[in-house]
């Protein structure tokens, strides 16, 4: 029963902001943080129950194929915790970082974006997934253009055009699925999928994958990403890189694992993942100029790695993918938040402008270094454990092809080492161009420090989350249990 509040509260918060804003702007700006903190609390309190058995709640009270249901299992709840955590930190950060008006609209859009993300990972209905996906996309398009400068609006238009084509594809996929199977509930669909004509099912799957693949930035559907992620305000980049594309990957995984049983497509997914990984990392390597663009390309590479791990079609692979997803969210969230303030301080996105900034802002510099090392996969940070899990899962496939792909993952890591260490070198060892630079204000330092602490804590003591992730991976792989818990409920 409480689980429905996970979705209801963010909606309520978003609608409350304008009304409260007529009284006190300060309170209105803090609503996203309050709501997301409450969501985080609810999600954490539900965790023990969800780990015992997934919580299936019906919305509006009828048994699942009739009503939309929320599926609060280890996977959905784990991702909801991650999303509300990063969302909360970005909301706190945004209170100090965003100076341009209309601030009220910024905070509302951030909250609607995160509402969409939380809804996506919790819903059990494929059309509802689409609706939440649209909330997320539309808010991201608007936020990408928030600065209203030349590049921002242009990137937003590009994102909107490509994203809308993706949405249309998703809707075509849903129409085909509904036409063939007569239901929209994902568990119900999964139960009936074998009754459908294989050709129609394959085509529906293709349309859905292309649609969600655009949001998940899978190659070659990611032309929008580098522009959008680099032109948006940095707090928005953190959400786009740390939440939006991950939910796209979640949707892809939920569809290929739960709804469609099919090993053939998984292998294609693994190959696409590797291609995405290599192309993203190489593009990032060639990015000598713009920090945010470099980080954006690195996000593409990391998404490739996640998709590759999902493509292994094994529980170990799904576990590794989820672990990598968590570590990428933490590291990239931190990087965009920290770099955002650095850009603000030096007034430029050029890497050369960051010369020696790590020594001028030692605190922030250290945090950035932690995130960068975690992204590369250096122990004792989270990224090391997650990359290790990916490599281990790949080798556990006992197939020469997958072993070859694991080698390519290591090659990509070497490329990562190349450009990220180059960045650190500029940050710490180049001769500073600037004089004194002030450290971060508390509203920015606190979120960044929390993310850094999590990266270290999970890296040293991975058991903190691996239990949850193992269960989440099991929940993804075991279709029969998913079907039974939804259709058997109520």
């Amino acid at each position, binding site marked *: 029963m409480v689980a429905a*509040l996970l979705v209801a509260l963010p*909606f309520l918060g978003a609608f409350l902001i304008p009304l409260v804003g007529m009284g006190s702007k300060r309170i209105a700006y803090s609503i996203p943080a309050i709501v997301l903190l409450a969501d985080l609390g609810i999600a954490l309190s539900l965790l023990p129950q969800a780990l015992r058995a997934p919580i299936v709640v019906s919305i509006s009270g009828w048994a699942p194929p009739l009503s939309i249901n929320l599926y609060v299992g280890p996977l959905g709840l784990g991702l909801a915790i991650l999303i509300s955590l990063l969302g909360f930190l970005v909301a706190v950060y945004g209170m100090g970082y965003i100076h341009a008006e209309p601030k009220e609209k910024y905070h509302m859009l951030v909250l609607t974006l995160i509402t969409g993300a939380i809804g996506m990972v919790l819903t059990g209905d494929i059309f509802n997934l689409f609706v939440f996906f649209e909330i997320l996309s*539309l808010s991201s398009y*608007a936020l990408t253009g928030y600065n209203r400068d030349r590049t921002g609006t242009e990137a937003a238009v590009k994102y909107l055009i490509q994203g809308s084509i993706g949405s249309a594809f998703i809707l075509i996929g849903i129409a085909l699925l509904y036409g063939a199977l*007569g239901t929209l509930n994902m568990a119900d669909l999964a139960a009936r999928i074998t009754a459908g004509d294989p050709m129609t099912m394959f085509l529906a799957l293709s349309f859905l994958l292309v649609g969600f693949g655009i949001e998940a930035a899978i190659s070659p559907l990611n032309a929008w990403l580098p522009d959008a992620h680099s032109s948006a305000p940095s707090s928005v980049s953190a959400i786009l890189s740390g939440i939006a594309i991950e939910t796209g990957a979640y949707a892809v995984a939920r569809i290929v694992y739960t709804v469609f049983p099919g090993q053939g497509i998984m292998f294609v997914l693994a190959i696409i993942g590797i291609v995405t990984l290599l192309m993203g990392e190489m593009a990032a390597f060639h990015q000598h100029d713009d920090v945010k663009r470099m980080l954006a390309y690195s996000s593409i590479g990391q998404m490739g790695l996640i998709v590759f791990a999902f493509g292994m079609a094994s529980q170990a692979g799904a576990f590794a993918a989820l672990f990598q997803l968590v570590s990428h969210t933490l590291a990239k969230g931190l990087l965009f938040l920290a770099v955002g303030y650095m850009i603000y301080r030096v007034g430029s996105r050029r890497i050369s402008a960051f010369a020696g900034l790590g020594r001028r802002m030692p605190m922030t510099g250290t945090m950035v270094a932690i995130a960068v090392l975690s992204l590369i996969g250096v122990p004792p940070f989270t990224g090391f454990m997650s990359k290790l899990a990916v490599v281990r899962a790949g080798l556990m496939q006992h197939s020469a092809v997958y072993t070859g792909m694991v080698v390519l993952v290591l090659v990509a890591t070497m490329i990562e080492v190349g450009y990220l260490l180059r960045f650190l070198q500029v940050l710490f060892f180049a001769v500073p161009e600037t004089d004194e630079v002030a450290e971060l204000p508390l509203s920015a330092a606190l979120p960044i420090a929390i993310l850094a602490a999590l990266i270290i804590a999970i890296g040293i003591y991975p058991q903190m989350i691996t239990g949850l992730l193992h269960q989440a991976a099991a929940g993804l792989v075991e279709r029969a249990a998913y079907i039974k818990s939804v259709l058997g409920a109520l």
Partner: protein
Amino acid sequence: MRAFIGFVALSLIAVGLALALYHIPFGQDRMDVARDYLARSVRDTGAPNVVTGIVVNYRALDTLGEVTVLFSASLGVGMLMTWRSPGGGRPLPGASLIVRRGAGFLFPFILLFGGYIFVHGHLTPGGGFQGGAVIASAFLLLYLGIPGYLLARRPLAAIESLTGITFVAIGIIGLAVGGYFLNNFLPKGSVFSLFSAGVIPILYMVIGLKVGAELAGVVANMIGGGEE
């Protein structure tokens, strides 16, 4: 090159859709869950308009989501249009006497019609979105008919906010009373009468006002020249 890739992609999509639709023959009865909806809707929701029963009761979360999509879009347009240079927009040419008088004369009737559509959404074709769109068109008419007409944004924002809060609040009351978010907690009344179907007419009124305010806001922001 671009044209060639486009051609290949379009051909693939055309063939794919044709192959998929070949197995979904047009016009045949393939209903499954839908049959339950048709059979149960009046009993479960009290709404003889089955589509309304689905949109506002069975799948009400979709509707909350779609209201939020429109909310985001209206926010986005408002955000993009703030602080636009005042001389940016061309002044609209003055309308003729007939248009001006006509707009003023029709305005209340269009509002009434929009209201009628969403109030009767559970009985007849139509509902909150359709009614809301009609209401917004009334304001568009004022913009076109009366030069220099400005819609005050604050009341619009207040309506958007209040109606959104009401929607979620009704949902939470349902959660508290019935145990399910967006559950119907009012008596369903007698079928085919205006005061029936529990919370559906209330929700549709809320949606109608919200959609009307949001679309009118989008129009107002795009025409520009407003205060913020």
